[in-house]
């Protein structure tokens, strides 16, 4: 039963990742593009957590922690750049 639920969750988050890629490429405003990149990072973390369940190992959580931090820093620096024209003042 966990296997079926895992397949369903994999399909949902994979489809979400495809929708995010569509939004990154065809975005109406710059804010949407940043938001889509941030959502891509969150979906990638979810996929890594599901992959860890699938493989039965906790090795992938360090990777998802690093991806979470990198995604946060990149989103904040992109928005800071658009707001102030400068990242580190």
């Amino acid at each position, binding site marked *: *039963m*966990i296997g*079926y*639920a*895992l397949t*369903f*969750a*994999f*399909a*949902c*988050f994979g*489809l*979400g*990742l495809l*929708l*995010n890629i*569509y*939004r990154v490429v065809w975005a*109406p*405003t*710059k*804010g*949407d593009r*940043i*938001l*889509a990149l*941030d*959502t891509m990072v*969150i*979906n990638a*973390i*979810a996929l890594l*957590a*599901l992959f*860890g*369940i699938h493989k*039965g190992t*906790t090795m992938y*959580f*360090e990777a*998802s*922690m690093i991806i*979470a*931090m990198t995604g*946060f820093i990149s*989103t*904040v620096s992109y*928005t*800071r750049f*658009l*707001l102030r024209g400068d990242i580190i003042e």
Partner: protein
Amino acid sequence: MLVEILIAACLVISGIFGLVGSLGLIKLPDPMMRLHAPTKATTLGVGGALIASMLYFYFVVGTFSFHELMITLFLFLTAPITGHFVAKTHLHLTRKPGDLPPTGSDRPWASYESDAERARIEAAAEGDTAG
């Protein structure tokens, strides 16, 4: 058996929330509306996936791992900050200060107040309370 049902339910709910969050980013009409879907629904979805992972490793594999809790805490702390920054970027790129409704006080919207003006007003307020 009960634990398996719980883990499967967590996985299915997290998948639905993650898909709804990504779909909302595509379907909603206004940029400020589109901000809602990823910052709330997708964060809840990834939280559900991490809870399912923690339950799985504790009850099925037999090892307790607290990495999921750290990732959940980090995501729940940073999602409002990124949402705030994206909303502020959108406001600055598409609206002028004249387009916004009045604030109801003599100070402008905090996002458009210059540093010098804020320092002057705060120094004046501090002088009032001290005197």
